[in-house]
C-alpha cells in the first residue's frame, strides 16, 4: 500500500511539471493576421474578368472584290441607335429604293424587345440547341464539356433557316450597346451574325426614325 501511494505521489509530481507549459501570448499574432487579411481583401480582385470572343471577317484587301452574297429573305439588319435604342428592318435596300427607304422598327434591349424578335426568327435552331443541352443534362448523350461546345457549334454551322444578322452601329451608339447586342446573339444562339459598317442610307433612316436633324457634314461619302 505504502509503496503504491508513493508511486502515485511521484506520478503526480511529474504531471504538475507538465501542467504549466510555457504559455505563448498569441494576441500580437492575431493582430498581424487581421491586418494581413484586411490587406489581401482590399487589394485583390476575387472574380477574374470574363471575356467574350468575337471574330471579325477579314478586311477585303482588294477594293473591287465583291462582298459575299447573302439571301435577302434571311437578312435582319440591326442598327444600334442613340439613347440605347435599337432599330431593325428585314431584307436589304436596293439602289432603286433609295428615295423610298423602308421604315425602321424601334425596339430595346429588354427580354420582350430584341430577344423576343431574335428568338422568334431563330426558333428552330434555339430549340435544337435546347434539346441537345437537355439530352446532355439528362445523361442520354454522354459527352465532355468541350464536345458539348463543339456539338452546339456544329448545330449552328448546319443551320440554314435562322436569320443572318447584320449589326450596324450609328455614330451615337456606345460600346455597352455593342457588347449587349453581341451578348443577345449568344443568348439566342444566332448562328450567323456579323458587324458591318453602317451605310449612308441607313444613317438617314436612323435620323428619320429618331427625329435627329442630320449634321451638315453627315457621313454621306
Amino acid at each position, binding site marked *: 500500500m505504502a509503496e503504491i501511494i508513493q508511486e502515485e505521489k511521484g506520478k503526480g509530481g511529474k504531471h504538475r511539471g507538465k501542467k504549466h507549459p510555457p504559455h505563448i501570448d498569441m494576441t500580437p499574432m492575431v493582430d498581424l493576421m487581421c491586418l494581413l487579411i484586411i490587406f489581401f481583401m482590399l487589394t485583390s480582385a476575387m472574380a477574374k*474578368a470574363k471575356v467574350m470572343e468575337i471574330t471579325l471577317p477579314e478586311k477585303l484587301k482588294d477594293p473591287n472584290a465583291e462582298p459575299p452574297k447573302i439571301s435577302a429573305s434571311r437578312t435582319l439588319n440591326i442598327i444600334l441607335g442613340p439613347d440605347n435604342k435599337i432599330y431593325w428592318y428585314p431584307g436589304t435596300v436596293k439602289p432603286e429604293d433609295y428615295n423610298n427607304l423602308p421604315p425602321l422598327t424601334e425596339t430595346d434591349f429588354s427580354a420582350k424587345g430584341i*430577344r423576343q424578335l431574335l*428568338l422568334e426568327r431563330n426558333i428552330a435552331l434555339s430549340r435544337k440547341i435546347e434539346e441537345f443541352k437537355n439530352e446532355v443534362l439528362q445523361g442520354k448523350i454522354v459527352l465532355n464539356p468541350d464536345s458539348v461546345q463543339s456539338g452546339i457549334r456544329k448545330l449552328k454551322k448546319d443551320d440554314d433557316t435562322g436569320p443572318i444578322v447584320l449589326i450596324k452601329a450609328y455614330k451615337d451608339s456606345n460600346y455597352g450597346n455593342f457588347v449587349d447586342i453581341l*451578348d443577345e446573339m449568344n443568348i439566342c444562339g444566332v448562328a450567323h451574325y456579323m458587324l458591318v459598317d453602317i451605310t449612308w442610307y441607313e444613317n438617314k433612316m436612323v435620323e428619320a426614325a429618331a427625329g435627329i436633324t442630320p449634321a451638315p457634314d453627315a457621313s454621306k461619302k
Partner: protein
Amino acid sequence: MPKIKLPTKSPKIDMTPMVDLFSVILIFLMLTTTMRQPEPEQIDTPFSISEKPTPDFNVLTVLIGKDDKIFLNFDNGPDTLLKFRPKILAAMGERYNIQFTDKELREFEKYPSGIGVPILKMKDFLNTKSSKDRAVFQTGIPVDSTDNQLALWVLFARQVNPNIQACIKGDTKTDFPIVKKVLDIMQEKNMNKFNLITSLEAAKINLEEIQK
C-alpha cells in the same frame, strides 16, 4: 485559520484557435485571388453571359476609357525571362529614334498597369518617380492617321510575340466610333479575333413563351 486569498486574475482567452482560423482564411485568400492592378482610369465593363476566363499570358489589352482615351497593356509572356515588354518598347524606340536606357526598360517592364503615354513623352514618364506625377503623362495613345502610334505598338507587339491575343476593355459609356477605330487599326495589322472583357451576368430564355 487564515483566509485563502484568491488571486484576482483577468480571464485569459486562448487565442490559438483564432490564429488557426485566421491562418486558414489568409492562405485561402492568398491562393485564390489575383492582385487587383491599379488602372489608369476607372472602367466599368459591360455585362455578358460569357464564362470564358481572361487568358493569363500573351495578352495585348487595349483599354478604352469614357473620354476616348486609349491605354495599352501587354504582359511579359509566360516566362518573365522572355522580357516581351522591354523588347516591344525598344522596337518602338528604334522606330522613333529614341534610345531607351536599361534602367528605363526595366522600369517599363515592371510597370503593372495600362500605359497611355505618347512615345515622345515616354522617357520623361519612365524617369518620373511618383505615381501622382506620372498620371499627368497619361494622355492616351494617339490614333490619328498622321501619327498612329497604336498601330505601331500592335505591329511591334506581334513581331516580338507572335502568339499575342487582343483583349479589349471598354467602358459601357465609351462611344462606339472610337472602338470601331481601334478594331479597324488592329484588323489592318491582321488581328481578327478579339476578346471583349466583360463581367458575368446570367440570362435565361424561355422558348415556350415564344411559341405562343
